[in-house]
């Protein structure tokens, strides 16, 4: 067992994460723009943050090695929680993604992201000394896919991709030989090509529309991204002011409290404000990577790296969508976007990383 040294608690990481989350709540308040239906739902976000912060501190206090030893149970629990929602899940936006716990609505797939960090980091740490061969790759892939398949079937492509990215990042950090990387790359491309016809119509449409913008495209197809660009652009250097962005407040910008909250923020706070938030997100990622570097053992490092990779991927995709350089996908901007489960999982992840940080440089 390791002794907790609270001096090692990364206050910068904690502070930045909490700051971003509070900023997110504020931004969501502005982004609901008088929509009565949203107002009720959005008032829960502070509760999620408060609850999440408590859970985060508990998470930090718990030695992460416990999770390593419980990996098998966590893995089974993750799959079980995903299967349960097919039985008792709530249907929303055409997909069975929600679990009504009676107190709060939970998206198990969001929590599973953190659980998979624990499980996969454990696998790669334990198998670090074994040969990094095809078996190693396929075993870890099957392990990951055993969970992802249930999310994919919801269907929730973006969260599935996030978990696959966590797997890929851990492969990379654990020393994936470059020749396998090449093979994986090719196989990946072939699989994507093969899977393309299996995608939902709207997903195919989004991707095609992004790669080959149709000049004749109907208004609806490109409306959201076009409005996002207009929204960002109209912010200028210093923005139109909090609650003053016309694109946001008059609701020309759609899904502005979740997928396009970056655009909303860009309009109201301008280039300067947006850069501050973007740099804060980079700062959080950097602190996580630092925790990974200084962790006392491989398991801790991998947890921190995997979490950093997940944050980076989500933030990059979300901002990319807003700037119209990535096809539209439903990934939230970490800490900022509305979404209780998403915030909860992100904050829990911070707790996990803090747990690693607290135990760096100490030998039992």
């Amino acid at each position: 067992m390791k002794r907790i040294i609270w001096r090692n608690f990364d206050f910068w990481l904690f502070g930045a994460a909490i700051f971003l989350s509070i900023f997110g709540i504020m931004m969501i308040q502005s982004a609901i723009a008088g929509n009565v239906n949203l107002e009720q739902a959005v008032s829960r976000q502070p509760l999620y943050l408060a609850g999440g912060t408590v859970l985060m501190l508990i998470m930090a206090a718990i030695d992460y090695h416990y999770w390593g030893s419980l990996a098998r149970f966590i893995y089974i629990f993750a799959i079980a929680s995903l299967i349960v929602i097919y039985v008792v899940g709530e249907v929303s936006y055409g997909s069975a993604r929600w679990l009504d716990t009676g107190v709060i609505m939970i998206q198990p797939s969001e929590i599973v992201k953190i659980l998979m960090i624990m499980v996969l980091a454990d696998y790669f740490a334990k198998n670090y000394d074994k040969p990094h061969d095809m078996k190693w790759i396929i075993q870890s892939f099957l392990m990951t896919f055993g969970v992802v398949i249930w999310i994919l079937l919801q269907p929730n492509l973006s969260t599935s991709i996030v978990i696959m990215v966590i797997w890929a990042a851990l492969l990379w950090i654990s020393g994936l030989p470059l020749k396998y990387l090449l093979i994986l790359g090719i196989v990946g491309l072939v699989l994507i090509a093969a899977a393309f016809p299996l995608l939902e119509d709207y997903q195919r449409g989004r991707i095609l529309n992004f790669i080959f913008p149709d000049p004749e495209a109907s208004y609806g197809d490109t409306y959201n991204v076009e409005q996002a660009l207009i929204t960002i652009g109209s912010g200028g250097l210093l923005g139109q002011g909090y609650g003053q962005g016309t694109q946001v407040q008059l609701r020309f910008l759609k899904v502005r409290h979740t997928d396009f909250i970056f655009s909303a923020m860009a309009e109201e706070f301008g280039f300067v404000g947006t850069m501050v938030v973007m740099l804060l997100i980079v700062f959080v990622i950097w602190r996580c990577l630092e925790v990974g570097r200084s962790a006392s053992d491989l398991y801790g490092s991998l947890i921190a790296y995997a979490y950093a990779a997940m944050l980076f991927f989500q933030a990059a995709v979300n901002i990319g969508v807003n700037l119209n350089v990535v096809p539209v996908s439903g990934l939230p901007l970490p800490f900022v976007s509305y979404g209780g489960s998403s915030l909860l999982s992100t904050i829990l992840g911070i707790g996990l990383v803090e747990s690693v940080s607290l135990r760096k440089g100490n030998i039992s």
Partner: protein
Amino acid sequence: MNNAKGNKPVIDKWRIRFIYILIAIVFGFYTLKLFTVQIINGNYYLEQSEDNRTNEINIQTERGIIMDRNGVVLARNVASYNVTITPADLPGDPTVNPLPGAIQEIYRELSPLIDIPVSNGVLNDDTVKLFTPCYTDFGIAEIVIIQDTNAPYTAVNVACDIDKETAMIISEKATDWPGVGIKIEPIREYPTGDMTSEIIGFLGPIPATQEEYYREEGFVTDRDKVGYAGVESTLNDILAGKNGKRVVEVDVAGKEIRDLEPPVDPIPGNNVKLTIDTRLQAATKAALIGEIQWWNRYFNTIRSSNGVAIAVNPKTGEVLAMVSYPTFENNRMAKYIPAYYYNQLLADPLTPLFNHAISAEHPPGSVFKLSTAIGVMNEGVVTPNQSLTCPGKITITEKYSPNDPGYEREYVCYDELGHGQVSYTRAIALSCDIYFYKVGGGYAGEVDEGLGIDRLAEYAKALSYGQATGIELPGEAEGLIPTSAWKRINMSENWSTGDTYIAAMGQGYVLSTALQVVESAAIIANDGVYMQPTLVREVLDSDGNVIQSFTPKVKWDITKDPLITVFDENGIATEEKKTVAPWVIDLTQEGMRKVVADTEGTAHNYLNNIIINGKEIPVAGKTGTAEYCDNVAQEKGLCIPGSWPTHSWFVGYAPYDDPEIAVVAFVYNGGEGASVAGPIARKVFEAYFELKAIDAGEPEVVEEIE
């Protein structure tokens, strides 16, 4: 790795460094992109966002109404009731299938009231593209779905121009049927319809060629209408008013948030009171159509296809009635111009869209002798009491130049027995052709030098011929008064002596509109003063205050304004101009009175002895039986030399001693002037003086029926 004690395996540093580089590249690129969008292209996007939220609303103004001189409404705006649905206000989502029960119920109850099915047609890109409210086969549900995707907070017309009772029923249901409403749109109505359509005209959509002009004036091209004919067209600027404007901030659903600029209220158009007396118009129309139809029935063929009757006040220039037959029903153009009806009017050989009163040019025939007569007296070609012999026919040498030996040609009077010795006034009364040949072109032994065409033209023009009168109607024709120069230029031929003889009696090249003919008589009746003919009596603002009252305008006075060019002995125009001596006009008036009063006068049998309320109304006038040979007559093979078809003319005024009305009646291919046009004019005179008596409150004298 570093101080990780022993048990921590080493992670390749370069693999982590790679992640750092990846982060730097991605966020570096995003920073660049953000800078481009917000700073470099910021203004472009800001403009687009301004464009998103600002909406300019054009508020339709109300067109002025048109009344007759007594305030009888001739054109007004009536409400057209449209049933609208605002999708966002419906109780539920109108796009889901099946529809929410509350919406279904509304649709089901509304459908039979407006006779539009609840659901009809298939929505796809093509059908939606063609969708136009009011002109669609879609059912209610489809119309609402289309509107919901376009502008859910804006009402869409579901049924148009429904009757008032249904509109009342629906507006009473408004509280039970959220989202359903009644929109009132103004459409033009002409209570007097085809009785006044040749004067009033009609409205139509803004023509594509003038779109830019009207848009700059604040008109909305597919909503606002402009005059297409009649005073609706010429007085458009007075009647149209000015649309109002609001610049509002709207949200994404089109809901108005606030005014961005102070709103500009619409300025309603001005109302116009015309000089027309609707009652006289009705009587005039009835007289003209009745006469034409009587003769058509009598000959059992459409002998006369068109005709004109105009009444003006010679002292003020006011047009009291103007009838062009046939005409059109302008109420059928009220909401939109139905293509089949418009094409039918265009294709009609009787040209109902054409205002015969001002746009048709015909030979005036003997009514033109008034111009010759005044010229002859004023130029001293003969003296008033000098009598010329009318033997029934004379032989005159047709010459194209003074030295041309020419050839002999016979000219006949309409009465081949001749009229014996004819003086000036008797010549007018009898309309003696031989007299006018002789004074017009000269006749060796009796009239050394005739009036000649160039001098005749001067007098004709002074009597309003050969130029537009400037009445407030579109498409006025100028007519034609030939001169020797005109013929050389246009016909490449010298003016011949024979041309003068026939021009002197309003034949040959001479063409005129009916309005010019009535004005020539009005000028004589008004002792030489030409009053500007007009249809506009007063312009009133929308509250009824007179903003332009009627002041008669003198166009010219032939006894005071030197209008007549003086020609020297060689027939060359000089700089000098002269007036017409008042006694010439007095004498001509006497002649015109004799036309009616003398038993031998051409119109005596038709216009003498008009007695209204026991008082005789003395009429003066002139008949005309104008030979013509136009393409219609040629096609029918009517142009037999020596026996051409004739138009009937009568022009006159009353009372002779103090004229207040001048009337022209014209019947195309009507035959004799006196017997066809005369009775029409008589009825107009009778109607006018009867109406005058009624207006003055004189008790009606009931005559015993014989």
